[in-house]
């Protein structure tokens, strides 16, 4: 892949990352400030945002770092909080198949937001899809690291009422869900994702409902395998 094609992929990727940029710069800065005010040096938020790159988990990490040393507990908690990422991998198996060596980085950077954008964004004709998705991942990561580092360095100087600004990420994910809704052939999977997760949240606590929700979603999709496959076969004229 030559330089020109990579530059074209980067240019095509950037507009798709603008909403994430705004959200990550803000949340990343908030994270940097939180870590700084919790008593850690300025380079800690930079280090964790580079090596972890999982927003919610990094906020949890600050609490972990303030408790007694327990590495196995840290690992177990991370596996639980980030279990939803297993779904992203399954969904991206085919999409990332041809990515070559950069696939390692693309999997490493598979956050909620990067997953959603890479799942639904279409590169313009002639742009390499794998490089396009690689640059979306890289840009998102750089926004997060930039925000966290700035927050760590200048954190205590920033004063403005940003209460509610974090809703931007919710709005972004809702919009991606709606975009997908408008383009999908049937709504069974979308509806299963919404209803099963709501049911799981009603039955379990905010800290424990994700894994039951995932099991419920897999269960529902497995039960509906025959009819759902029939629907997609009909719509695509028998090709699977």
């Amino acid at each position, binding site marked *: 892949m030559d330089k020109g094609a990579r530059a074209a992929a980067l240019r095509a990727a950037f507009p798709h990352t603008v909403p994430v940029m705004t959200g990550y710069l803000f949340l990343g800065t908030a994270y940097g400030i939180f870590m700084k005010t919790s008593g850690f040096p300025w380079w800690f938020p930079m280090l964790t945002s580079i*090596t*972890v790159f999982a927003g919610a988990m990094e906020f949890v990490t600050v609490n972990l*770092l303030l408790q007694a040393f327990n590495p196995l507990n840290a690992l177990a908690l991370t596996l639980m909080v980030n279990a939803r990422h297993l779904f992203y991998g399954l*969904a991206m198996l085919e999409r990332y198949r041809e990515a070559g060596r950069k696939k390692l980085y693309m999997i*490493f950077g598979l956050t909620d937001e990067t997953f959603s954008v890479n799942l639904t964004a279409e590169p313009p004709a002639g742009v390499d899809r794998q490089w396009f998705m690689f640059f979306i991942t890289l840009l998102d990561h750089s926004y997060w690291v930039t925000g966290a580092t700035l927050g760590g360095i200048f954190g205590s100087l920033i004063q403005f009422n940003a209460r509610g600004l974090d809703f931007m990420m919710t709005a972004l994910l809702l919009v991606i869900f709606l975009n997908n809704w408008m383009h999908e052939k049937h709504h069974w999977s979308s509806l299963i994702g919404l209803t099963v997760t709501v049911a799981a949240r009603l039955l379990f606590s905010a800290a424990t409902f994700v894994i039951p929700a995932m099991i419920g979603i897999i269960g529902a999709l497995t039960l509906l395998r025959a009819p759902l496959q029939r629907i997609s076969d009909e719509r695509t004229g028998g090709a699977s």
Partner: protein
Amino acid sequence: MTLTQLLITIAMVSLGTIITRFLPFILFPAGRTTPKYIQYLGRVLPPAALGLLVIYCLKDVDFAGAAHGLPELIAMALVTALHFWKKNTLLSIAAGTVCYMALVQFMFV
């Protein structure tokens, strides 16, 4: 904790995140044929995963609290209506966020 212990803890969180992201790719490598059932899941899961994410964002909303989750519900209804109408991603996100910030800063304080 000492600096070494802090760094080990961060490394464990990094490792845990890497495991959850890489596991599907390790279990079903590109070189081998992926089982039909997993291929099916990979095809039908994405919309459900997006649905799960939307609800996941609301996991800490206290619907029994003073605001009854109204700021979230109003702002999300606005995003949905606006998006079906204008289909403009940035406009929907900006309007929803401004609406939500106004609600939590001035109406449901």
